[in-house]
């Protein structure tokens, strides 16, 4: 049984506080709340280009290294296919999906692998790797927790990449709801992504830079990301090349 609301709360705090320690904290929060034995978080820019940010132990680190040097495995697949790769029991995949990786991985105690892309639409920043030593699929509420952790990793990595961290508004919830209304889950609002696309064109940058710019503006103006996104969509606010 997971402590899902507690995990979500911890993740919100980690995103709000940001900083270089966030990858470790996200992985540890997952390991504390979910039936996992190991976790790791890596930045990825291509299937063979990765930068490990944190790994819980040597085995998690080795599994990551192995995949990137072999060019196969759940991390590579999650990144390339932009989808979660959930493996309840690695022994079932020993000869088919990733023959070389599985043979090597089966010499470690790890049996269940749950790899989530750290992504938002066209933006893919890395992968969150969750490992357990006993076979078995994550229960639906556990998967919810893992997906929330991947979301938290997304905002944290975006912050680490652009240097703006420690902003409580990134998860779309004001620290204090100004109008007394329920906090709006901004990040799931399609407007945020429409505005991101508009900024891609205005600034001639990649979507992750555009989303960073949107987020930095919200931070500077003490607005939520959704509020800024709406200004962009109704064309009251522009992000131009010279004025990010």
């Amino acid at each position, binding site marked *: 049984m997971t402590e899902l609301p507690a995990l979500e709360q911890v993740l919100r705090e980690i995103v709000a506080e940001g900083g270089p320690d966030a990858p470790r904290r996200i992985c540890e929060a997952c390991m504390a709340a979910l039936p996992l034995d190991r976790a790791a978080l890596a930045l990825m820019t291509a299937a063979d280009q990765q930068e490990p940010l944190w790994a819980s132990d040597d085995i998690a680190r080795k599994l990551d290294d192995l995949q990137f040097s072999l060019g196969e495995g759940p991390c590579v697949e999650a990144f390339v*296919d*932009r*989808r*979660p*790769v*959930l*493996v*309840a029991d690695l022994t079932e995949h020993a000869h088919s999906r990733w023959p070389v990786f599985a043979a090597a991985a089966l010499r470690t105690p790890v049996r269940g692998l749950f790899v989530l892309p750290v*992504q*938002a*639409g*066209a933006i893919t920043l890395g992968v969150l790797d969750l490992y357990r030593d006993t076979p078995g*699929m994550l229960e*639906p509420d556990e*998967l*919810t927790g893992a*997906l*929330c952790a991947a*979301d938290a990793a997304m905002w944290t990595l975006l912050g680490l990449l652009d240097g703006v961290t420690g902003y409580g508004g990134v998860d779309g919830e004001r620290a204090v709801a100004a109008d007394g209304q*329920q906090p709006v*889950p901004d990040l*799931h*609002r*399609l407007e945020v*992504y*429409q*505005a*991101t*696309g*508009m*900024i*891609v*064109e*205005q600034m*001639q940058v*990649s*979507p992750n830079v555009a989303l960073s710019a949107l987020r930095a503006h919200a931070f500077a103006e003490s607005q939520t990301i959704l509020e800024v996104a709406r200004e962009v*969509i109704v064309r009251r606010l522009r992000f131009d090349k010279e004025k990010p």
Partner: protein
Amino acid sequence: MSAEQSSRERALAEAFVSLADTLVTDYDVIDVLHQLTIECVELLRVDAAGLLLSDQRGTLQMAAASTERARVVELFQLQSDEGPCLDCFRTSQPISAADLRGMTEWPRFIAHTLDTGYRSVHALPMRLRTETIGALNLFSIQPRALGPDELRIAQALADVATIGILQERAIRRRDILAEQLQVALNSRIVIEQAKGVLAERGQLEMERAFQLLRGYARSTQQRLSDVALGVANRTIAADVVLGPLHGSTSP
């Protein structure tokens, strides 16, 4: 059987044949879901249809809609907080509101819906065995009760959407369902990002941007989600998708 009835049955058969054809080839989930919402509008003679999927984080997200008109998209999104779609998803039961005027449930949703020009709403669950993964939402401008036959058709269309998300052999495995849901929802975000690029480049409404995106994918026989990814990442030039009418930097 009346002429109207038989022509409708023909349309229905054609729609299912065409959807079945799609589902045996290599298809793009998000494109199939969009097609399905269009079929709903035509077959059920409603004015707008949308599919909302569970994001597995406790929220319903719009995955596809028959129109990308901003006001309508807003209506679908609003239902992550309250509305017949959310209730339908939670109870796994169809919900019909033949005339919203005078109803007191879902006050925010109803106010917004009437304001957008719709009077009636229907929601059908998307179910797989014991799991409910989303809901099909139908809007009509006029007060409208769907008869038992129409509700059966609507449910069948919702079921096709569920199967479309699962893809072939995946139906037995819950992990694949979870993966597929995430793929569909992430594709939706990519489409929004691409719409933004095109809307800015061509100074267009989001709805028009979507039409051009889909038109380009069709005419070049590419997957909608691949084209959207290319546009969002700028590996496909916006001008190519926009075509000669919108290509240059207009106003």
